[in-house]
């Protein structure tokens, strides 16, 4: 039937949407226990009701019958006639499943066996229903002349319903509609019609109008008529208007007999009838325009209560629904691909056209415009593919409930962050792994209630699903409060199953043993149910998640539970990548996998690169990391030979068969040094593993469109995809987890773990808080919060330009504004006078200056490891990986010098005395400031000795002679106060010029109590962080002054 072709998909889709909503509602009802929430019951009821109604249009008797039964049982529940028993929920759920199956195969739905479900529901209804008897009603005799010849139609309606309608003074109408004329031609779906009907009253039942099939010979084209029974308080002409149907298709039903009954009962019942809720609804109903809901007739009694929920509510809902159109996924995917191509084209255009901007003045703004529009368009298109996690979260309520019932456990599932959105592909790919994790948690992790009580836990176990954004990725954790995983037993099992050898097990840390459950072969054959915790098919989880570009972390506490965290990218198609080289090959490393960039100078190689049990490791802030050489890994570097294996040490480590055949990825130390240039190491963090990857060169970061690997390359472990770079060349994307596997660095983890635990204790965490911001370009910037006095937001129109310099009226002064793009090697943002700009006003400025930026991204507390080589330029301290992204740290004072050279004239070589360089001790705990101050001092010609805290400073002072000392005040171990006290207490040092450089104290004020205290304690100078000019001037004066006094030789 042609009418069906168009309407059927809409029916199926909408019915499925209803079912999707109904299931969580049902489960929510059950968890609420004995007092079901009326609103939820009503919502379920309405959903089923709509399906029943719409199925009538198509003559799907099976769907209609089942939903009718479900509706009846829900009506009983709503009216409080039955209680919400687990049996009822079971019956409804199984009905729901049957409806789902029938909708999936709509053609076969009529032959689908629903007897079990129907009988189940019918029994529940029969048990409890006292008055589900039906009565036959007929249409009111039509006025003479119109339908006189036609027999009156008769309908069977439940007596209880009729009674309710009569009580509420509703009219009953038989409404005939024709699929073609009334639905399809008006561009509606059956659901639209039912919604509309429900808005004005209550739809009761539908019947296929047999008479119209046999009798109406003029009605060709399969014009089937359906009769709907519609209960409403509206008069016939209003009904016709509301339903958008010709009046002839609406016939009132004769309820006179029942009304008489009611009249007889009225004195007792009516006054008590309207409840409070109904009254308030009535008030709402009065608020609607007269035209839409005219009060039916004069003889109406005043006690009328409106049907529930009122038409007014419905109408409002309808008005506020956003208009939507449906788009096929294929179409969307094509759009995504095209957007990818566009981004690619944009990148190539930018690279080609950028050099031309100098000669073509308008080109730059055109490029910026295209750049911005492309980015925005791509973002919007990607957003179209984003779906909330609740789509998969919701179905697990059911899974957990059913499983728990089966295993006679009590389990609660709580989910948060269901509104977090991920790309459709990722959402789909998550379904299986999550299913595994949740099932495992219920099956194995959560103990039976009695066991839990014995252990002092609540009877019911709790599984939590939590999703949140962090660092541009989505973290999804599944935690239970069950048994936890016993790493030792996992290990034994793994040995038993031949996954690892007993010797290998010995080498493993507890953490690594737990991770064995992710190994393929660990749990595929038989279920490891005798093992505590989880374990079934976990290799599937890790494979699937890694396939999605994500990682898996596991944390377990035996007896207390397990948390598995999935870390997922937001989308698959476009990533931010670091372009690196190995030999003359270019590769992309996804930026999210990079923890930090490390540089090892040739003279540091001995100290920072170690051999532990025949494997190479990198010393990084007192921890050890396995080191993989990319060139060796990819068989690129023929000039670096493998170091001879030391036979004595080999027995200690079991690299396994496969790694023995592979070339060791570690080059000889001597060869490393022979290169005679700093080593570039990327610290990779992936799935709980962390290792260093030695590369030749770091080029830059690039937004890239990920394309799938050609099938010929799929078997190679080292790559995860390909991309086309801005210069048009094809580049392979490195697969960081594949590299770990290929390099077989696993065996190292245990070594590292042992060393780490010892060294962790002595490790000092030096973190500092940084403000992350951007300049409306892809680059990210950061400044230490300590250096910032204020952040202002101003409209760009407030900026005044005087002699090509920008100023802002700020606190009665003219604040000189610096635009980052004018002085730094960064992209130039598009600026319009309507922009709202951010201004960073730094502390400690001799001349008022401000840095213009776009918006604050975040503040992070991080231990910054500053890279001064990868991306360098005047006005930059360097770069660091912050919040998962490469971030530039502008050197604001150099920037100001560049911007206003007239204000800053640093005297060179003030650090040199008559014969030699002056020597300065610098004690500073924050590596960032240490580095910056050192650079300032060295640029002025000083020789600098470094101490991380006061204690180290004193030790150096014992052995070395210095001309001056600079101390930070807040430092671990021994702070500035303690250090100065010790210095002044030492006869040899009591006249040493010592200067405090700190962020303590109020800047700019002449009376500074902290400063006073500093002088009392013995400091010769008190300087606020961090003003290069002032620091150098004061230091020079200090040394000069002491020299004059003849203190220094």
């Amino acid at each position, binding site marked *: 039937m042609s009418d069906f072709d168009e309407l059927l998909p809409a029916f199926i889709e909408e019915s499925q949407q209803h079912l999707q909503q109904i299931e969580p509602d049902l489960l929510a009802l059950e968890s609420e226990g004995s007092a079901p929430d009326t609103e939820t019951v009503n919502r379920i009821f309405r959903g089923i009701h709509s399906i029943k109604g719409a199925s009538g249009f198509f003559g799907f008797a099976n769907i209609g019958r089942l939903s009718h039964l479900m509706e009846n049982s829900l009506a009983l529940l709503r009216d409080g006639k039955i209680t919400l028993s687990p049996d009822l929920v079971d019956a409804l759920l199984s009905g729901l499943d049957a409806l789902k199956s029938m909708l999936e195969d709509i053609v076969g739905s009529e032959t689908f066996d629903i007897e079990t479900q129907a009988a189940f529901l019918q029994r529940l209804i029969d048990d409890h229903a006292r008055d589900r008897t039906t009565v036959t009603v007929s249409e009111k005799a039509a006025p003479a002349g119109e339908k006189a010849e036609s027999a009156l139609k008769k309908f069977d309606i439940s007596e209880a319903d009729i009674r309710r309608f009569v009580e509420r003074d509703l009219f009953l109408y038989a409404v005939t509609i024709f699929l073609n004329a009334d639905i399809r031609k008006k561009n509606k779906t059956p659901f639209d019609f039912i919604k509309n009907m429900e808005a004005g009253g209550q739809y009761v039942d539908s019947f296929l109008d047999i008479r119209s099939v046999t009798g109406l010979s003029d009605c060709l084209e399969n014009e089937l008529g359906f009769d709907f029974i519609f209960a409403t308080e509206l008069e016939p002409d209003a009904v016709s208007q509301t339903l958008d149907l010709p009046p002839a298709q609406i016939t009132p039903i004769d309820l006179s007999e029942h009304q008489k009954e009611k009249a007889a009962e009225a004195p007792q019942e009516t006054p008590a009838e309207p409840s409070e809720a109904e009254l308030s609804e009535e008030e709402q109903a009065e608020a609607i325009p007269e035209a839409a809901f005219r009060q039916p007739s004069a003889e109406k009694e005043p006690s009328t209560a409106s049907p529930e929920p009122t038409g007014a509510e419905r109408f409002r809902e309808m008005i506020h629904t956003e208009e939507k159109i449906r788009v096929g996924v294929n179409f969307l995917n094509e759009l995504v691909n095209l957007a990818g191509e566009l981004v690619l084209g944009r990148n190539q255009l930018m690279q080609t056209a950028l050099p031309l901007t100098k000669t073509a003045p308008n080109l730059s703004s055109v490029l910026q415009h295209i750049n911005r529009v492309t980015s925005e368009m791509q973002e919007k298109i990607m957003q179209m593919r984003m779906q909330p996690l609740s789509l998969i979260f919701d179905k697990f309520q059911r899974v957990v409930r059913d499983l728990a019932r089966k295993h006679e456990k009590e389990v609660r599932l709580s989910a948060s962050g269901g509104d977090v959105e991920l790309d459709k592909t990722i959402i789909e790919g998550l379904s299986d792994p999550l299913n595994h994790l949740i099932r495992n948690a219920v099956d194995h992790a959560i103990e039976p209630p009695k066991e839990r009580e014995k252990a002092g836990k609540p009877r019911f176990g709790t599984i939590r699903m939590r999703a949140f954004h962090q660092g541009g990725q989505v973290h999804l954790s599944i935690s239970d409060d069950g048994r936890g995983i016993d790493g030792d037993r996992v290990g034994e099992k793994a040995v038993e199953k031949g996954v690892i050898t007993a010797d290998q097990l010995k080498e493993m840390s507890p953490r690594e043993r737990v991770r064995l459950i992710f190994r393929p072969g660990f749990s595929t054959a038989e279920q490891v149910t005798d093992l505590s915790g989880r374990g079934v098919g976990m290799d599937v989880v890790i494979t699937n998640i890694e396939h999605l570009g994500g990682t898996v972390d596991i944390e377990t506490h035996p007896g207390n539970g397990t948390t598995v965290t999935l870390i997922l990218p937001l989308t698959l198609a476009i990533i931010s990548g670091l372009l690196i080289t190995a030999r003359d090959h270019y590769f992309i490393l996804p930026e999210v996998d990079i923890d930090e960039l490390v540089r090892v100078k040739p003279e540091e190689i001995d100290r920072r690169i170690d051999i532990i049990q025949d494997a190479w490791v990198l010393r990084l802030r007192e921890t050890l990391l396995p080191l993989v050489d990319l060139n060796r890994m990819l068989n690129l570097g023929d000039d670096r030979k493998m170091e001879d294996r030391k036979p004595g040490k080999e027995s200690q480590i079991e690299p396994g068969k496969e790694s023995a055949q592979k070339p060791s990825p570690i080059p000889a130390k001597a060869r490393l040094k022979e290169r005679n240039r700093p080593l570039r190491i990327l610290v990779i963090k992936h799935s709980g593993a962390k290792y260093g990857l030695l590369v030749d060169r770091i080029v830059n970061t690039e937004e890239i469109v990920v394309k799938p690997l050609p099938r010929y*390359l799929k*078997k*190679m472990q080292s790559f995860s995809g*390909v991309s086309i770079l801005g210069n048009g060349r*094809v580049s392979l994307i490195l697969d960081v987890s594949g590299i770990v596997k290929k390099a077989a660095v696993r065996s190292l983890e245990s070594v590292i773990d042992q060393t780490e635990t010892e060294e962790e204790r002595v490790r000092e965490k030096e973190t500092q808080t940084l403000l992350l911001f951007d300049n409306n370009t892809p680059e990210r910037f950061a400044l230490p919060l300590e250096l910032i006095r204020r952040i202002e937001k101003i409209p760009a129109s407030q900026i005044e330009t005087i002699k090509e310099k920008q100023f802002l009226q700020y606190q009665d002064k003219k604040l000189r504004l610096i635009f980052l793009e004018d002085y730094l090697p960064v992209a130039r943002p598009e600026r319009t006078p309507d922009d709202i700009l951010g201004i960073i006003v730094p502390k400690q400025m001799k001349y008022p200056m401000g840095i213009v930026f776009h918006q604050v991204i975040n503040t992070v507390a991080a231990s910054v490891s500053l890279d001064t080589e990868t991306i360098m330029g005047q006005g930059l301290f360097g770069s660091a990986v912050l919040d998962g992204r490469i971030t530039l740290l502008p050197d604001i004072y150099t920037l100001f010098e560049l911007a206003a050279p007239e204000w800053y004239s640093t005297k060179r070589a003030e650090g040199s005395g008559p014969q030699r360089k002056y020597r300065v001790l610098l004690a500073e705990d924050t590596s960032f400031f240490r580095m910056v101050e050192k650079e300032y001092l060295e640029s002025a010609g000083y020789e600098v000795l470094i101490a991380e805290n006061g204690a180290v400073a004193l030790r150096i002072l014992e052995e070395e002679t210095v001309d001056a000392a600079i101390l930070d005040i807040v430092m671990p171990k021994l702070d500035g106060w303690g250090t100065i006290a010790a210095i002044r207490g030492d006869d040899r040092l009591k006249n040493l010029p010592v200067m405090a450089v700190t962020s303590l104290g109020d800047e700019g004020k002449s009376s500074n109590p902290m400063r006073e205290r500093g002088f009392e304690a013995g400091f010769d100078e008190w300087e606020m962080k961090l003003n290069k000019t002032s620091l150098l001037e004061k230091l020079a004066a200090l040394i000069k002054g002491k020299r004059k006094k003849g203190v220094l030789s």
Partner: protein
Amino acid sequence: MNRQIATFQLDDNLLGVDILLVKEVYRHMSISPIPDAPPQLKGLMNLRGRVVTVIDLKVCLNRPSTEQVDDSRLLIFKTEEEILGYRHRAGLDGVELGEDIVGFLIDRMDEVVTVETDEILPPPPNLTDIEEDLIQGVIKQGEHLLILLDVTAVLEKVMRAAAGKKEG
């Protein structure tokens, strides 16, 4: 029934493939090599925003690899999807090109010849150094012999080489 064969030179041989399989011929290639890949895989190339896998046909035919890529041409094939419409044509059943675009490195293109299907003869044994199962048939062209390549078989050989590389 006739077929059109795109012919090309490779070393001293005249080889050919069905023209319906050919997307285009390309020169001035900029190929990114694939590290640690078997020699059959010469690299990857950007063809107007799509990635082409460049296959060294000489290696596939058991010859020394192509040294001077600059002098070569790239014979680029259609994808599975693009030949869907020609599936019913003579000689094209059973052709599997895959979803990725591939290109063969060749010395230079020659003319397109039209042949009757019955002119295509089974390859005589020990014809050349080319493995027999990579040859669909031979066609006599005057005193020369045109060797019609089985593209699917060549691609499968590359796949095997790539998979084998991992184990070795």
